[in-house]
């Protein structure tokens, strides 16, 4: 049947007349049905076979639009925050608590696992090198500094980008597909205030706490390796950390975590709101939320690190 329709279409395109009378009755009826709704070819946009320059042009226009959309979104979130501080933001407190619960406590297990392992890896890598100089005890400095300044915040951020950021994008994307976002607009409720604001605040609050937790878990991971590989007792290890890793290092990590939290929530929500109107678009939104978050996290980390260097913190 499919062969027949293809054949007939081909004949049609080449102006060849086909005599269908000799076909069985049933087949004739089916053919008639198949050709009653003529496909509107002009409606299909020709994506294939564009010249390279057109493609480059389109991608550039797309990128430009993406940037201006993003700037607009940042502005909207900013004004939502202003409304929040003026206590005029349209959102439900219960929503905020729910988001905090979903983002924080339920991520503890995976944060524990990853942080302990990262602490152990740091200690392993360091141990081999430091042993060459007989400076094993400095393993504590290495792990302590590494976790507090960098890895605690970074690892939590990457976990949260994959877990929470992607979930935000998928949820808001689905709401976009179901016209729920439009329904909010038609009752004059700002989707940014109602949906984005509680999520940004939730991550802004939970990320620093998760980061502190992750720091300690990483340091414990390092302690396990030091004790088993280098014969450094827990007591020596923690005393060394207490002596050399000041609180300011932890503050830098916590500050980074807060920044990352905002970035993850905004990237997730932005991709969700930008989502097209199909199920595959939702999948794409979730993926691109994770990619966007991770790029933003690393760029922000680099900027903060350079700033700390310049300021001498």
């Amino acid at each position, binding site marked *: 049947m499919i062969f027949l329709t293809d054949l007939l279409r081909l004949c049609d395109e080449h102006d060849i007349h086909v005599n269908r009378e000799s076909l069985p009755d049933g087949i004739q009826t089916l053919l008639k049905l198949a050709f009653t709704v003529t496909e509107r070819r002009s409606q299909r946009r020709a994506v294939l076979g564009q010249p390279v320059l057109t493609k480059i042009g389109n991608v550039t226009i797309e990128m430009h639009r993406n940037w201006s959309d993003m700037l607009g979104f940042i502005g909207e979130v900013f004004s939502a925050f202003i409304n929040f501080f003026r206590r005029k933001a349209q959102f439900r407190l219960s929503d905020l608590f729910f988001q905090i619960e979903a983002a924080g406590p339920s991520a503890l297990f995976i944060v524990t696992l990853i942080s302990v392992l990262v602490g152990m890896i740091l200690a392993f890598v360091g141990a081999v090198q430091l042993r060459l100089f007989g400076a094993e005890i400095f393993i504590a400095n290495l792990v302590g500094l590494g976790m507090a300044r960098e890895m605690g915040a970074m690892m939590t951020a990457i976990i949260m980008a994959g877990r929470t950021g992607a979930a935000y994008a998928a949820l808001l994307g689905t709401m976009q597909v179901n016209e729920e976002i*439009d329904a909010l607009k038609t009752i004059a409720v700002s989707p940014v205030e109602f949906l984005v604001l509680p999520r940004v605040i939730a991550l802004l609050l939970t990320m620093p706490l998760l980061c502190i937790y992750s720091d300690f878990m990483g340091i414990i991971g390092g302690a396990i390796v030091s004790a088993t590989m280098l014969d450094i007792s827990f007591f020596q290890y923690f005393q060394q950390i207490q002596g050399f890793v000041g609180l300011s290092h932890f503050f830098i990590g916590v500050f980074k975590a807060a920044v990352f939290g905002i970035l993850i929530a905004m990237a997730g929500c932005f991709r969700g709101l930008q989502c097209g109107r199909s199920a595959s678009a939702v999948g794409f939104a979730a993926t691109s939320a994770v990619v966007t978050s991770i790029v933003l996290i690393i760029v922000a980390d680099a900027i903060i690190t350079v700033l700390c260097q310049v300021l001498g913190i």
Partner: protein
Amino acid sequence: MMSTATPHLEVRQLTMAYGESIIQEKLNFSVSQGEIFIIMGGSGCGKSTLLRHLIGLMKPAQGEVLYHGVDLWQADPEQQQRIISRSGVLFQGGALWSSMTLGENIELLLKEHTQLTPKQIQDVIAYKLSLVGLSRYADYYPSEISGGMRKRAGLARAMALDPDILFFDEPSAGLDPISSRRLDDLILELRDSLGATIVIVSHELASIFAVGDNSIFLDPTEKTIIASGSPKDLLETSSDPRVIQFLTRMK
């Protein structure tokens, strides 16, 4: 009260497009106060898109949408807000907020736009849900009810604020014949008791003839209105085969 001379809703030279591709162009029609206005046309011809333009979700590529003579896109933000909050919308898929129960869906509107006490809000919710036969389902989430029920709940939400103008996108699609019939009664009731203007996108012939005062017919190839007038008159007087086919379900 607004004067009856200016139509409640008027569309002038409206062109609708997604990016480069034009969906419909040069649309002109007006909907007067208290009228039940039907938008007809084959699927994919841009009826939902037209609705999105009427309720201010999409900006016209060209032309104007006027409420009581005020252009929606020239009005100041306050006026826009007022126009929008005086209209109720039922989307094609219901578009209930999935993270809230049916009751909370309606509650959100009432909290945002009225000064009712919590007790009064609960009463309104119960009343609106009972209108669409869902009084026992206030505590259900949208995912826990059927598609037709979602549609009816969406209807209850659209009516929550007793709006001046209601937009329904295929309200009877997915409803059983009896609910569909009851919906027609409800629509007439809304118009007669509240004087609401109602704009309906519909394929349901029975319902079109039962409730429609006025209508337009969109065509996907002409990309504009090919017929307009009361559905009954159209059936008798129209000579356009596409319109006749649609209205008589003939091949």
